[in-house]
């Protein structure tokens, strides 16, 4: 092979102009076309798979150099190139249109990319997304799906609780191995946070739905409107299935325990985003679900959820300020999304922590009282600067407040089933992701607390392997 020629700068992806995109929920980033995707793929220096740091950085270990090679090997035959690339991706990740969009690549696969040492890392996320999008548009994904269909006779039956990223991945991996899988989902649509949490301008729901079509094609049954713990118990599932996977996430919002929390127009980010994304309240009254957003919105928090809520509120016509108790460099949201929020006109206030919501005579919020915060040099366990109140206060006007300070696991399951859990409600699992109940595995936010989509998918995949081993062992001993 010829000595690789290094191209330091990545091929850019076009984005919709700010003034156009803030008026609607259409996707901001437009992605690569084939020619620019190949050009970007050609920048990869093709580290061998057993060494490639990008593969190690990916929680589901996609053979990244492999799929980039497949793309450029058939640069004159786009359909062929994409089919080969998608096959490589699907071996490890069945939801590339999702992960290519929502993964924090800068902390995962792209962080250790060798090219990043001399210039820009390879734009792996956008290339993954390109492959998935092109394949979907050309129907290539449907053709390829037949290759992944497995014989399901007699291998075993698995129940998956929760149709979010962890559950979907676990179900798809098990289906590819030949298990008969049933997913139980509490809401009326599958997808979990991908459906109710992440807005259309980052992950269009039509695209998500086509990704979810794979479930049916691979023989996975989805039972919506089933609340495990209420509609059916874990014990009953264990009676019917060989194993159970819990991927119920962390969906219960943390609310601030300060005066005024029950005032009108104070939303948890989960309620706000569920109304907007799942119920399409931004299309009210064409859709029946209402949402009340005023002219001045304050979002409390600075994670991805806060960015999503802020940018959604902006698109509903409000002026939006994010208030965060730490500094700019402490924000946990993706760099790309913070950038998008700033471009779109979201304002930021740092080192402020809310102490009271102030209401008007009608019980509507009209202002938030904050205490000013001072950072210390000392760091906490997560490496963040410790902070301390200054005793100084500032009051900001707001007619709507969205609280995005984090989520914790829902306790419905815990109460009903007697799992061993941590004080924060996360399930305790062993190194094979098995819970304290034999045959019941768990992963994603249900065991981690609020984390990322891709870590949940990594858990789903790992659990699928462990479940396979468990069921094989059980059948051998039977």
């Amino acid at each position, binding site marked *: 092979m010829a000595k690789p020629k290094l191209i330091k700068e990545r091929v850019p992806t076009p984005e919709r102009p700010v003034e156009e995109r803030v008026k609607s929920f259409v996707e901001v980033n437009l992605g690569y076309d084939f020619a620019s995707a190949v050009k970007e793929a050609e920048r990869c220096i093709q580290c061998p798979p057993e060494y490639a740091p990008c593969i190690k950085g990916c929680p589901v270990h996609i053979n990244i150099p492999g799929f980039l090679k497949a793309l450029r090997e058939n640069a004159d035959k786009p359909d062929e190139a994409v089919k080969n690339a998608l096959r490589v991706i699907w071996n490890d990740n069945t939801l590339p249109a999702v992960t290519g969009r929502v993964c924090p690549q800068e902390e995962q696969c792209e962080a250790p990319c060798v090219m990043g040492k001399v210039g820009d890392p390879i734009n792996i996320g956008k290339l993954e997304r390109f492959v998935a999008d092109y394949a979907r548009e050309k129907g290539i994904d449907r053709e390829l799906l037949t290759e992944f269909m497995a014989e399901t006779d007699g291998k075993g039956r698995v129940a998956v609780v929760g149709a979010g990223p962890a559950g979907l991945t676990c179900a798809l991996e098990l289906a590819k191995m030949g298990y008969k899988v049933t997913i139980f989902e509490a809401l*009326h649509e599958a997808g979990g946070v991908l459906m109710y949490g992440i807005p259309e301008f980052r992950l269009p729901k039509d695209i998500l739905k086509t990704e979810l079509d794979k479930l049916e094609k691979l023989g996975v049954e989805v039972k919506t409107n089933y609340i495990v713990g209420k509609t059916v118990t874990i014990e009953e599932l264990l009676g019917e299935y060989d194993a159970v996977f819990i991927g119920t996430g962390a969906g219960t919002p943390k609310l601030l325990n300060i005066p005024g929390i*029950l005032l*009108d127009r104070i939303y948890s980010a989960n309620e706000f985003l569920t109304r907007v994304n799942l119920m399409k309240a931004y299309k*009210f009254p064409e859709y029946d679900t*209402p949402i009340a957003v005023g002219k001045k919105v304050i979002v409390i928090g600075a994670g991805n959820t806060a960015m999503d809520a802020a940018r959604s509120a902006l698109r509903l016509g409000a002026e939006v300020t994010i208030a965060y108790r730490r500094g700019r460099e402490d924000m946990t949201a993706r760099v790309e999304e913070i950038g998008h929020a700033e471009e779109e006109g979201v304002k930021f206030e740092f080192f402020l922590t809310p102490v009271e919501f102030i209401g008007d005579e009608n019980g509507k919020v009209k202002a938030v009282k904050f205490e000013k915060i001072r950072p210390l040099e000392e760091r906490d366990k997560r490496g963040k600067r410790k902070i301390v109140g200054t005793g100084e206060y500032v009051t900001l006007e707001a007619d709507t407040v969205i609280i995005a300070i984090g989520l914790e696991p829902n306790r419905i399951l815990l109460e009903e089933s007697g799992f061993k859990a941590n004080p924060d409600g996360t399930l305790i699992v062993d190194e094979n992701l098995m819970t304290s109940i034999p045959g019941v595995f768990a992963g994603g936010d249900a065991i981690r607390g609020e984390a990322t989509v891709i870590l949940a998918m990594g858990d789903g995949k790992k659990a699928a392997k462990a479940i396979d081993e468990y069921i094989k062992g059980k059948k051998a001993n039977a």
Partner: protein
Amino acid sequence: MPYKILEKKEIAMRNIWYRIHAPHVAKKVQPGQFVIVRAFKNGERIPLTPVMWDRDEGWIVLITFIRGRTTMRMANELKPGDEILNIAGPLGNPAEMEKFGKILAIGAYTGIVEVYPIAKAWQELGNDVTTLHVTFEPMVVLKDELEEAVGRHILETVPIDPNLDFPTNMKNVTKRLTEKVRELLEKEEYDMVFMVGPAGDQRAVFNVVKEFGIPMKSDLHPIMVDGTGMCGACRVTVGGEVKFACIDGPEFDAYQVNWDELIARSGYYTDMEQRAMQEYMKALQGGEQ
């Protein structure tokens, strides 16, 4: 999986009865629990209460009061044989099933349909249950069923005065409610009062019950979206703590509830609810032309 409407009928003015095939709910539901229904593709999720069920045949009965766009659309557009898109449940905690003694179970308006399964189960458990239904004259429901199910069923109706606006008419119901409750509590000794109805009426009745120092439980109806504890739309302050009615309730100790807050919160979307209704009415009229 859609859920088939086996039977639909108007059982009183603005009160619609649906018997629906929903075996997953019918198999598990207990008195006090509810379901979340989404009837249409562009529809919202609304909480409703299974009034009756047959575990073997796999059906539940829901009775809706036509109050806004969704309940109106359901009444207008759904026919027997049609399918409801989503019914999630059962949700919430079952009502406490104990021997409390002599119970006064109150239902204001269509609230009585939620009282029915609980009162019936309490009576079957050996309690002496008196049910009280206060509503407008043309809105009487489940009279025969309650007379059969509990020790005594008292029906108090208030005429709708066409010369008065709706809020004023509703005040007459509140007045009759509080008067009747006072009369009953003065004459007889009750061990517990239970109520389902609008938050304002619940507070009015609670203020009477409180004077007698009798324990009271209330089924609360805050706004809900998911009904599974993941959004907090239904939060209420109970005993000074924030609780989610969908997972911690819907039944709470009336003495612990912050009624003012609850009443304020139930009116949060009134403007948009009216707009949704008007748009729907406009569309209907347009369709008829």
